[in-house]
């Protein structure tokens, strides 16, 4: 987590959208989106399939026209100054596409001709440099048609980096990459961030996003449901795991915690029960890890003694699932509701769950 913090983060917005909206007929693919991406951010753009990520990226790049709202990049409105904006961006939109009859390096040559770069051999060193970054140098003469999926994706990243842009937008860049490739891309993103580049990364691999991004936005059905600092969002999702000495005490402890939560402890967000690998019941208290001692004290006050008390780190997965779940899915998103456990416990004298 620590190396993800970029030295050049200076709070200047690079991307700022204002009420950006796109409707395809009746379907509102992106609704009233207000995004802020700061210079030096490694910004994770998350959301389920069809939530409008690619549509947003397309609007930012001027490929599709917004139905309402506007997008400002580098301080320029993209409805008016698109060419100047695009010169400063390298992007992959969905699966990269290239000319199938050209080799990798020849594709880069054509792209350079369309990126404001000088023609001819002048930029040959740069083509080789970016091919080297994505480890395609040995395939540079192979026609694109014969590239594997991962090689295509790598060429897409090479093309995005070609003109050394200050903003790199990657729409699911690890799609089709092997595990080593995924790790390489993570490292590459971290290197780019260290150089002061701003990265806008749309991805479904939450663990990767959690590792590289300092800020995220989560979309659900075209609506922005969360935007913020990754560390802060994770802190909100911290939990304390409580294992009681005796299985029989679980129910009692739950009741105590529930009662306390309702009456005094507003720092407890949610309580649930989970079973660990040893089929022991674990009480999960959604509370900052710093509250472990308070929980212990509360239980002790009722003569209940925890055998173990563990802080559990928040995961982006939990943040994501909560933000993107439909209301009725919410309770099933990660663990078993307390009430269900209590019901199950009263049916079953042992207190185990089914």
């Amino acid at each position, binding site marked *: 987590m620590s190396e993800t913090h970029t030295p050049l983060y200076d709070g200047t*917005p690079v991307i700022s959208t204002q009420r950006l909206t796109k409707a395809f007929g009746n379907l509102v693919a992106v609704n009233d989106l207000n995004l802020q991406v700061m210079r030096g951010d490694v910004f994770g753009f998350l959301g389920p399939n069809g939530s409008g990520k690619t549509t947003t990226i397309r609007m930012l790049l001027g490929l599709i026209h917004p139905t309402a709202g506007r997008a400002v990049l580098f301080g320029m409105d993209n409805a008016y100054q698109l*060419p100047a904006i*695009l010169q400063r961006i390298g992007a992959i939109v969905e699966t990269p*596409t290239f000319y199938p009859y050209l080799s990798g390096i020849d594709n880069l*040559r054509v792209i350079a*001709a*369309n990126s404001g770069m000088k023609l001819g051999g002048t930029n040959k060193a740069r083509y080789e440099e970016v091919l080297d970054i994505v480890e395609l140098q040995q395939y540079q003469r192979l026609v694109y048609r014969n590239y594997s999926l991962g090689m295509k994706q790598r060429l897409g990243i090479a093309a995005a980096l070609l*003109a050394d842009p200050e903003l790199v937008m990657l729409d699911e860049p690890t799609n089709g990459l092997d595990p080593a490739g995924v790790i390489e891309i993570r490292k590459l993103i971290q290197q780019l961030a260290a150089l002061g580049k701003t990265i806008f990364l749309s991805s479904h691999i939450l663990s990767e996003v959690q590792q590289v991004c300092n800020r995220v936005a989560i979309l659900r059905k075209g609506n922005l449901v969360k935007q913020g600092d990754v560390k802060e969002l994770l802190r909100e999702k911290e939990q304390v795991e409580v294992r009681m000495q005796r299985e029989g005490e679980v129910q009692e402890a739950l009741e105590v915690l529930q009662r306390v939560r309702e009456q005094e402890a507003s720092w407890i967000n949610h309580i649930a029960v989970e079973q660990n690998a040893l089929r022991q019941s674990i009480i999960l208290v959604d509370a900052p890890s710093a509250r472990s001692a308070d929980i212990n004290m509360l239980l002790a006050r009722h003569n209940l003694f925890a055998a173990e008390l563990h802080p559990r780190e928040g995961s982006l997965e939990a943040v994501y699932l909560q933000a993107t779940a439909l209301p009725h899915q919410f309770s099933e998103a990660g663990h078993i509701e307390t009430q269900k456990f209590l019901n199950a416990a009263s049916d079953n004298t042992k207190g185990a769950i089914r």
Partner: protein
Amino acid sequence: MSKVSPSMTESLLPMPERSKNVVMGNQSFISVLGRSIAGELYKIRRRAMSKVLSTIAIATIILALLFTNWTSSQPLPDAIYMTLSISNFVGSILFIILAGTIVGGEYSVGTIRLMLTRGPTRLQFLLAKLGAMLICVCITIISLIGIGIITWMLLNLPVGHKIDFSFFTGHWIQHTILFILAIMLSLFTYSMLAVCLSSWGKATAAGVTGVLIWWFLENAISGLLALLGSRLQNAFGNFLATVPDYFIDNNLNALRSNQQNYLMGNSAGAINDLHAGIVIIIYLVVFGGLTWWSLKTRDITN
């Protein structure tokens, strides 16, 4: 180019230096367009299709000259005009296919996304395609004339025929050059139509079949209107009979055949050069304008 947004409240972020390995060129509209055209020509050159099409064109010219020479030897100017007529006919078909492909292919492969997110505007994208087509037309016609002349020489000089340079007068040169330009304009006009239709239809087939249908319809309607006009024998009939004078094919034909008429010492045919020139220019402007407008307003998704 760089209109400033009316509601701009943000301050422009300065652009950091690029890596020293990235050598940028001039960013004026024309320079950007020039590099885009160079990129288009590079792609055309590297396509297998261009090689196949050129081979077909060259083979047709050589075979036609071989055949005519086989029956009786023809003088050089006749061979040049034959080469030009064949180039016009074969070229029309080949350039329609090429123009349809270079535009439709961007949509079917999805590379249009790539092209439109690198900096050049949609106008520059379209102009680059048209510029590349124009350059290809010129290069092709000039090369085919060269090939025609060389073939004629190979067939005639070894068997003792001499070149009679008496045809090579200022008058001949003038009208031959204009005839060549008229052919280039014909090929470019059809290429333009193919570029436009395949851009509208987002597919190669839309351009190729679209132009063929256009061609067929023009000829069918011309015939029909001429027939109707002669039957009606009144003002409306006369009007109908003049409608085909505004068709693409008739005007391009007129531009070419007028030069041949002048060369023979005759006067222009039914459609004069000025009329034909203006009609063709209007078509080009309308096709180009509509295509640009549809491209500009379109959402690029696929």
